[in-house]
């Protein structure tokens, strides 16, 4: 048997797309997701801890069975609760890069990467030759003889990816790929990972709770909260028009649910107060439940009520906190509505802002976006 005939690659070259429509119940928790991922597409799954992100990956990898619904990859049914079909993990052409990598501690880097081929019955020498291609591709050749304990976090991450890719899966899953890395190597690995994922021919799912990771590495985002899809769209759109407070916090926007009360864009906010907004896209007629999004940098702070009436939105509040973020200061203001405001440190000093101070906030209507608060499509 030669290296090229190592019995791998269920679908290497064959471009399968993923269709899933699943419910996974575990104790009191229910995960419900339906979506499709095209070949070569990178879907980001974003959500807070406990949202069900890892449960979703485990179901796709065959480490957990779905309670109802089905998972299809290309023409193959991987899991179908109704038909009673369940392809176990070891028979699925699915690669999974675990958050903690799970490199086998007793094997060298090379033998970790050769593991899939060995598992499928290849001779040691053939499996190693096969592994060498992937070590080379991920620039790991120099580390081939090392044990996982001798690797840095970034190197271990690359080995884990190489090991998964060497199994030549038709679909690739990554669970929080950068979570175990320190901030410095994260930057480097992120762009590198982006490149490798872009090269992968099949569907890719990247689970993350890091918005930047989600924006940089994925083509499309699926936001999960408490087991349900709350938003679905391109990273840019999710970042501009968050559907929930969780996403708004992640992308750093002020988000207010409210009711559209006037056609000029006046919105009565659920939290009290009202804002005049300019929709970036026309609001479909009949939509009265809306969301209002304001960037923290689009809000101005005044120590006295601004008399020049050019901004349409002016409201009073009390500073409850100040936080230095890199080159700006994030000011928390309690009022109707509450707001996060970004100012330069110089502005904070000029205005002598401090917690407890009464201030006035203003925002131009053109800086305030409004859009329908659709119940998320399942």
């Amino acid at each position, binding site marked *: 048997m030669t290296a090229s005939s190592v019995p791998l690659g269920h679908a290497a070259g064959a471009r399968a797309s993923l269709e899933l429509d699943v419910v996974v119940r575990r104790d009191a928790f229910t995960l419900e997701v339906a979506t499709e991922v095209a070949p070569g597409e990178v879907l980001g799954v974003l959500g807070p801890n406990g949202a069900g992100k890892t449960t979703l990956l485990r179901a796709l*990898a065959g480490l957990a069975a779905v309670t109802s619904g089905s998972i299809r990859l290309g023409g193959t049914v991987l899991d179908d609760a109704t038909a009673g079909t369940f392809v176990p993990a070891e028979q699925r052409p699915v690669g999974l890069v675990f958050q903690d990598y799970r490199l086998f501690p007793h094997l060298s880097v090379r033998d970790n990467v050769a593991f899939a081929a060995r598992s499928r019955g290849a001779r040691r020498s053939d499996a190693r030759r096969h592994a060498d291609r992937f070590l080379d591709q991920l620039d790991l050749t120099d580390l081939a003889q090392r044990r996982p304990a001798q690797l840095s976090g970034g190197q271990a991450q690359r080995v884990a990816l190489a090991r*998964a890719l060497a*199994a030549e899966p038709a679909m690739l899953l990554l669970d929080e790929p950068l979570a175990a890395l320190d901030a410095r190597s994260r930057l480097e690995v992120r762009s590198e990972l982006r490149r490798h994922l872009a090269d992968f021919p099949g569907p890719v799912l990247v689970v993350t709770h890091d918005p930047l990771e989600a924006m940089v590495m994925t083509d499309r985002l699926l936001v999960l909260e408490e087991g349900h899809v709350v938003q679905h769209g391109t990273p840019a759109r999710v970042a501009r028009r968050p559907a929930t407070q969780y996403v708004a916090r992640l992308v750093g926007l002020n988000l207010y649910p409210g009711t559209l009360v006037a056609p000029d864009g006046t919105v009565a906010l659920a939290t009290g107060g009202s804002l005049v907004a300019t929709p970036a896209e026309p609001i479909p007629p009949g939509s009265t439940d809306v969301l209002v999004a304001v960037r923290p940098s689009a809000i101005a702070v005044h120590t006295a009520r601004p008399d020049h009436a050019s901004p349409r939105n002016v409201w009073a509040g009390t500073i409850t906190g100040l936080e230095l973020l890199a080159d700006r200061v994030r000011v928390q203001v309690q009022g109707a509505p509450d707001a996060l405001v970004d100012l330069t440190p110089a502005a904070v000093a000029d205005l002598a802002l401090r917690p407890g101070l009464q201030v006035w906030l203003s925002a131009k209507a053109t800086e305030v976006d409004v859009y329908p608060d659709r119940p998320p499509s399942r």
Partner: protein
Amino acid sequence: MPWPLALTALVTIAFLLVPLVGLVIRAPWRNLGHVLAETQVVEALRLSLVCASAATVLSLVFGVPLAWVLARARFRGHGLLRALVTLPLVLPPVVGGVALLLAFGRRGIVGQYLDSWFGLTLPFTTLGVVVAETFVAMPFLVVTVEGAFRSADRGYEEAAATLGASRLTVFRHVTLPLVAPSLVAGSVLCWARALGEFGATITFAGNFPGRTQTMPIAVYLALERDPKAAIALSLVLLAVSVAVLVGLRDRWLHTGPTA
């Protein structure tokens, strides 16, 4: 340190050490070589080492799968099975020997068929020694390895499954290597227990020099006939025990607060 505790600890240390020191002091150092060179002694030592090693191999072959089942499988009566399997740990070895006779003796429950179908006789044979030692010592290995299987990180096994490894491949290439330190520790414990086995062996296999007379039995018998020889033999077993302890020192002697 409260002095009552310290004092009691000192007495205990003395209690544990004095007999061993006595053994060393009273040993017939001058003609030690002469005593140990006797054929019967050499045979007993050889028999002991061979039988203890064979019992350890048998325990590995049959005990490791059992440990895996106990650690991983969930079924009715699991707790009861676990208790039964570990019973030989607390059972008086003589009782074990009697039980083995009833099971594998010439007219025993299983033994009568071994005899009539295969012509295989276990009692009072070297093979009987191995069986008795395995019966008594295997639980030490099973308990040690079971704990390791239980606490082994299942994450590695999942990772192996996503890489296409069958359950058996996962067991052989991932789980076993992960528990290797416990396999070694369990084997050493098992071997040491088998080496010192007396009660079950003499009951089931008897006392035939060169065939079933192992070191502990030789020591016991020599004590009546030739006490000096008994001390010399004991010294050999003590040396073996110390060697085992030194071999395992990383596991046992460095159990400080950080361990």
